[in-house]
């Protein structure tokens, strides 16, 4: 009896793999490098993915979508229509990831630490930096003498003023 049910569900799964919601979501996640497949997927790196579609596809077709979705939303936020009111669970996981928290809640059964590792994944588009490598804007009001000193230092080292400052703070390890 159970085997009969499993076979029937397998047939349903086959239909679901042709669903637009699944194909759209995969087209984006594969194009960006979050997922890889052994079947042809039409790459859609510029797509705006509906969160509801991605969650449906993760729950009904490919659970690995749910594993990478929070990191994808965090790193490529403009490509998703995340609404914290409607997608509260996801928004909370994304917020924890953004803060770099070590522990957090599971998301549709996906453990937090599994989802967390994809925040640092090098993506196909090398312009998209991992969270810990993203530059942060900081503003300082410096004494003109310090500004002159920084400019001279950058000239001497043939680098930008930001790089000169980073080298001073971090040592010449980079």
């Amino acid at each position: 009896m159970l085997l009969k049910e499993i076979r029937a569900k397998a047939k349903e799964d086959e239909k679901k793999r042709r669903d637009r919601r699944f194909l759209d979501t995969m087209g984006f996640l594969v194009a960006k490098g979050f997922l890889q497949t052994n079947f042809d997927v039409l790459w859609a790196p510029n797509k705006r993915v509906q969160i509801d579609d991605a969650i449906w596809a993760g729950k009904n077709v490919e659970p690995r979508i749910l594993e990478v979705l929070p990191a994808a939303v965090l790193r490529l936020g403009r490509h998703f229509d995340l609404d914290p009111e409607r997608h509260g669970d996801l928004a909370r996981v994304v917020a924890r990831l953004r803060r770099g928290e070590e522990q957090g809640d599971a998301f549709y059964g996906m453990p937090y630490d599994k989802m967390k590792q994809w925040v640092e994944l090098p993506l196909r588009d090398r312009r998209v930096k991992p969270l810990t490598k993203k530059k942060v804007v900081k503003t300082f009001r410096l004494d003109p003498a310090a500004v002159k000193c920084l400019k001279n230092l950058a000239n001497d080292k043939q680098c930008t003023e930001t790089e000169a400052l980073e080298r001073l703070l971090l040592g010449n390890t980079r």
Partner: protein
Amino acid sequence: MGTTRQRLERIFRDLDKRIAEINFERRTEGLRLFSKTKVRLLGQTSLMANDRISAMFSLAQTADLDAVLKMDDLLKNEFTKLLIREGLVYDEDSYLIWIPHGAKFERLFDFENVGVETIDPESALVSKAVKAPEKNKQLIREAIASDEFPTLVDRILANGGKLENFA
């Protein structure tokens, strides 16, 4: 990009070359040479690397590469760099993957300095069905319905798995 098997072949061929270079340097320095390293692929990667299985099932994977490595840390470092170049990440928790009793390992590549094996597909499926049924339920359903694995259901049940997870 190519198929998973082609990508893996690129990675392990390059690792083989890199080990040859390292050993050449070590020989000139009078250091002990690294012996042949062994890699056993597990999990989703093992299925995607298998041409027969890959033709049968629709598979997706994250960038995780699950494998048991028998190599020096220095070589592991080289290996992880090569993986990153191909958009993959070595899963440091690979040693936690449960290998069911009766699993067999099949040779995938055999280079001078690197030997690569994969767990047989049915055992990979049993492991997934027993230890991570939720994440793999569609795949297990597809495998059961395919009738390609005559002892799959028996092995799932014998190892404490529940068919209810897939119904």
